[in-house]
């Protein structure tokens, strides 16, 4: 068994840094029933970057996403999202900020009493006094992005797990948010469907330049994202030409025992000498 590596020491980001980054975590701690889940973690998500978060079950990966969205409040520390300190904001103020953020939940969290159309259009219908006819075009556009245009009148219960995940992505991107948070988008899916979803995330990163935090257990998905780019002309994901690895804005973050033990790109991860990390990626 590898010895626990030391946590990464990072300088405390200033609020000015927070304005230039999409997300900044600053010494964030949270515990549930006396069990410390995150213990003073700090990291940054640069604008336009996609950062994959790894860690064993219960390491606090999903908690990071919920903290970034203001769904949970940390016990200590500050979290800046698009320049705003979410730890100091009231719920009513957070609703405004959340309109700039999209989230894909682990189990999709689609509204089961609404059709796919109503699910995808939910944010548009809530945000403005628009009719259902007026949202038809953006709904179709979002669903065509995930290649599910033919499911508009279906209910979530009539869709497969992979389709539900893609509808959740369509719902998250319909307003072209500045930040996207993916909670295990490929978890429990077959390899073909997983690849489709990875392709959608890469497309979102390379076409819309959206900043994203991605929680996953599947290292191969993150490596695929780090070694592929989205070809707009061919409308498909393609491997980076040899020698261009590291050219895509993709980073990795590994959690252990409530601490960040790695924060860097795919090349640095592959070069890591840390036993735990080597064991993790092997």
């Amino acid at each position: 068994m590898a010895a626990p590596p030391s946590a990464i020491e990072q300088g405390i980001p200033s609020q000015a840094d927070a304005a230039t980054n999409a997300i900044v975590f600053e010494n964030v701690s949270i515990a549930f029933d006396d069990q410390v889940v995150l213990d003073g973690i700090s990291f940054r998500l640069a604008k336009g970057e996609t950062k994959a978060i790894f860690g064993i079950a219960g390491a606090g990966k999903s908690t990071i996403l919920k903290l970034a969205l203001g769904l949970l409040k940390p016990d200590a520390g500050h979290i800046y999202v698009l320049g705003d300190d979410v730890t100091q904001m009231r719920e009513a103020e957070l609703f405004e900020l959340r309109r700039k953020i999209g989230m894909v939940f682990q189990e999709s969290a689609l509204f089961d009493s609404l059709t796919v159309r109503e699910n995808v259009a939910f944010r548009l219908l809530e945000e403005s006094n628009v009719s259902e006819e007026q949202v038809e075009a953006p709904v179709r556009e979002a669903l065509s992005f995930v290649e599910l245009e033919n499911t508009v009148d279906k209910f979530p219960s009539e869709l497969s797990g992979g389709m539900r995940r893609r509808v959740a992505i369509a719902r998250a991107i319909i307003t072209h948010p500045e930040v996207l948070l993916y909670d295990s988008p490929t978890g429990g899916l077959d390899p073909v469907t997983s690849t489709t979803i990875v392709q959608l995330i890469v497309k979102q990163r390379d076409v819309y330049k959206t900043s994203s935090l991605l929680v996953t257990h599947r290292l191969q998905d993150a490596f695929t994202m780090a070694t592929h780019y989205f070809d707009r002309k061919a409308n498909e994901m393609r491997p980076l030409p040899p020698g261009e690895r590291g050219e895509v804005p993709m980073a990795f973050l590994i959690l252990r025992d409530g601490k960040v033990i790695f924060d860097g790109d795919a090349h640095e991860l592959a070069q890591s000498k840390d036993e735990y990390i080597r064991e993790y990626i092997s």
Partner: protein
Amino acid sequence: MAAGDFLSRIELVSPTAFIKDKVQAVQDYAVLSGRAIANLFSQPRYFADMMQQADLVGVGSLPIVILTGLSIGAELALNSANTLQRFGSLSLIGQLVSVGMVRELGPIITGLMVAGRNASGMASEIGSMVVTEQIDAMRALGTDPIKKLVTPRVISTVFMLFFLTIISDLLGLFGGSIVSSLLFGLDWHQYWNTAYQILVFQDVFMGLVKPVLFGFIIATVGCYYGISARGGTQGVGRATTQAVVTSSVLILVVDLLVTKLLMSVFAYR
């Protein structure tokens, strides 16, 4: 062995922690109720959701309200007739059913019926949304779940219970009139005449204030237990049961307090 296992699994809670837990629950309930009311004065207002809930609570509860109203009025007439006959005052049966139904039985029976049907429905629906992260998704999409889910339910339940109680009162009187005329040969016209004349403003006021309070209790308690649901489907089931029990008990307690208060205010006869 089995008993030992069972005892070892019992989690002992200190009295302080227990009281703290209950006080916290009351505080959370008060905050939820306060926000549900405060949301009435801010945009957006979800009229479509209010209409949908009004249909579910009002139209959906109509059959049980009709049945219980009719049967309670008939039973009240049937039970009181024997006593009144002993004193040769059978003609007062209309008055007795009228005051009993309008002031007390109509609101409370309707409240309890609607609580059984709708507090459980609200708790299970919202509870299921909580455990499947739909409430978190709603918050993530920039929508206030209390404004979207709780406020429309509170408004609709208060509004519809008011009218359901009026329907229940009338049907109770009707049930009493059927029993009085068919079983005891009382004149139909006399029954309705005395039933109408005995009622004063205070009776009607008391009978119509209660459904407003009961409606508020049913919706807020149902939604509170739904939002507080934890622990998967088992938690939702527990929330549903607790919602019905708590709302029913609260209805009975509030009924007693309101009756006493209004009697004092009106210096009741």
